[in-house]
């Protein structure tokens, strides 16, 4: 894959605080990359560095093979969409769309053509003569996307573009952005802290924490084989269950948690022969119940403490060896608080993390 945006050793410091710590990232041409992480981890900072709105302390940024570390934002071949829309309040929608093109002295008929194309794609022609104040949130964000579209660039940067919208609009625009990406084939870098957006949109997800990328992989890989305990915890709702466990060096294929001995013959090891205290992680949706539980390699009886029926599924809260333990069951399952549930646990679906470095075992 030919790389389109490439970030090398990027470092950004505010005084003594390093917000980005020697970050490396390669984004392929036409790839949809999602930057995901909790608040304050440096996602916007990274995006602003790529856009040229923040000066990095060290490192370099390449776009289309050119070193743009010191280039002006408008010269980098990027378009950007912001969370707060950031439409120019005194200009009409058309004025907003064409502002950049007029600054770049693009010929009039070319401007017209691009505006027509973008407004057609986003269905905003009827709004062209309105001021932003007279638009709804969804319409404003469409215009903001349009403003990036007309620039006719290779790389789109989105900074949480949907987080000011209500749930329904968010879902609609999410699909629209995905469609747009399929149609245009541009490289897109998309910041969010919504994991549904990340999982549905991304070709690859970069999970960030504290200014470093913890894992960069396809959504399925991130979900199935999280490389770091933080990633495992962050992705998936409800979050993964973690059991306090130990792998004894004398029997490296058994993880002991409480009085359970979990055989690891079929566990997909990242680091073979790793021993010591570990977190044994298993997702609530990977726990078997009913008949399936009886055929699982490890079985355990749990007392349902709290039952949350959610329609398609039912969430059961319980406790195992002193730690909270969640379990996802079929929505039709008959279960009430106080019932005993037999749960089957398959080590093949588990994720084990070392306790000291929190990396996948």
């Amino acid at each position: 894959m030919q790389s389109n945006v490439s970030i090398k050793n990027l470092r950004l410091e505010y005084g003594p605080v390093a917000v980005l710590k020697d970050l490396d990232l390669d984004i392929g041409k036409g790839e949809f990359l999602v930057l995901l992480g909790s608040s304050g981890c440096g996602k916007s900072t990274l995006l602003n560095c790529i856009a040229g709105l923040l000066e990095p302390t060290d490192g370099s940024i390449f776009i289309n093979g050119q070193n743009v570390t010191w280039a002006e934002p408008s010269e980098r071949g990027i378009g950007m969409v912001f969370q707060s829309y950031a439409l120019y309040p005194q200009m009409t929608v058309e004025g907003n769309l064409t502002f950049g093109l007029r600054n770049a002295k693009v010929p009039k008929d070319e401007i017209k053509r691009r505006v027509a194309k973008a407004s057609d794609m986003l269905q905003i022609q009827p709004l062209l003569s309105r001021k932003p104040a007279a638009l709804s949130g969804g319409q404003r964000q469409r215009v903001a996307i349009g403003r990036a579209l007309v620039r006719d660039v290779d790389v789109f940067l989105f900074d949480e573009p949907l987080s000011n919208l209500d749930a329904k609009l968010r879902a609609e625009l999410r699909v629209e952005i995905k469609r747009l990406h399929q149609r245009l084939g541009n490289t897109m870098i998309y910041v969010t802290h919504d994991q549904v957006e990340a999982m549905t949109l991304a070709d690859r997800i970069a999970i960030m924490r504290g200014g470093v990328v913890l894992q960069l992989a396809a959504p399925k890989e991130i979900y199935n084989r999280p490389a770091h305990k933080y990633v495992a915890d962050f992705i998936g709702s409800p979050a993964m269950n973690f059991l306090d466990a130990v792998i004894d060096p004398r029997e490296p294929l058994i993880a002991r948690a409480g009085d359970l001995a979990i055989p690891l013959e079929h566990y997909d090891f990242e680091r073979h022969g790793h021993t010591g205290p570990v977190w044994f992680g298993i997702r609530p949706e990977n726990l078997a119940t009913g008949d399936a539980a009886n055929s699982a390699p490890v079985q355990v009886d749990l007392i349902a403490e709290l039952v949350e029926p959610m329609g398609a599924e039912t969430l059961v809260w319980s406790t195992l060896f002193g730690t909270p333990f969640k379990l996802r069951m079929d929505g039709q399952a008959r279960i009430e608080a106080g019932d005993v549930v037999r749960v089957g646990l398959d080590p093949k679906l588990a994720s084990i993390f070392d306790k000291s470095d929190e990396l996948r075992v």
Partner: protein
Amino acid sequence: MADATFTHTTPRRIWPADAAGPRPRKRFSQRNIIIYSLLAVLALYYLLPLYVMMVTSLKGMPEIALGNIFAPPTEITFEPWVKAWSTVCTGLNCDGLSRGFWNSVKITVPSVFFSIAIASVNGYALSLWRFKGANVFFTILIIGAFIPYQVMIYPMVILLREIGIYGDLSGLVLVHTIFGMPILTLLFRNYFSSVPEELFKAARVDGAGFWAIYFRIMLPMALPILVVAVILQTTAIWNDFLFGVIFSRPTNYPMTVQLNNIVNSVQGVKEYNVNMAATLLSALVPLTIYLISGKLFVRGIAAGAVKG
């Protein structure tokens, strides 16, 4: 009924359940009557001097000599107004306040324009571009706002003399522009700080430079604060007396200085009617500005956050 006072289960009816049509107007309550009468008394108290000035300026001297300052004029005359405007003597010149009026216009208009133009660019640069040393620059400006004028007057006189514009209108304009800078810069900086940063970033991605962002995006958004600045500066500069006396020569005296010379002249009889007319004439400009822009002023002061 009795248990309704003890339990919270019975909701108290505040308005009729079958309410329809326009909202009923509240009649004067006792509290309102007290407030309104207090306000009326205060208003009278402040209007009374204005009334006295008005009637006195319309009387002839013999009538004033009778001594009843509250009585309306028996015979209305505009003679004092005409005299105050065009023939009353101040020092050597006998062309009335009109000279001072035009001097004040020539001082106020450029001072207001330049001070606001410069301060708005300052505020814009300080709040959005955050260049190196911006904080130091801003601190110096703020300290400048707190230094008493008296300290700076003498150095300023020497400075203007060295440049060679001491006594000229341009010198006075320069002084007003400089002294308006700290407070105006603060005003604009705070206003532009409330502009969402992403708006500024979007404009940079769109290839707009320092001036393009200022003129095409920020200035149109700053209309309310521009109005505030114009009002503040116009009244301050028009009403200025100290700088006018110090930094200009008699032919260039602004209206306030001229007014003082008329009212405080020690020669001849005191022409109260002319003095009153002259005072009203010089108060006319700030008064007009307040009247026509009062609403805009309040709106500008209240305009905190700017939503995109």
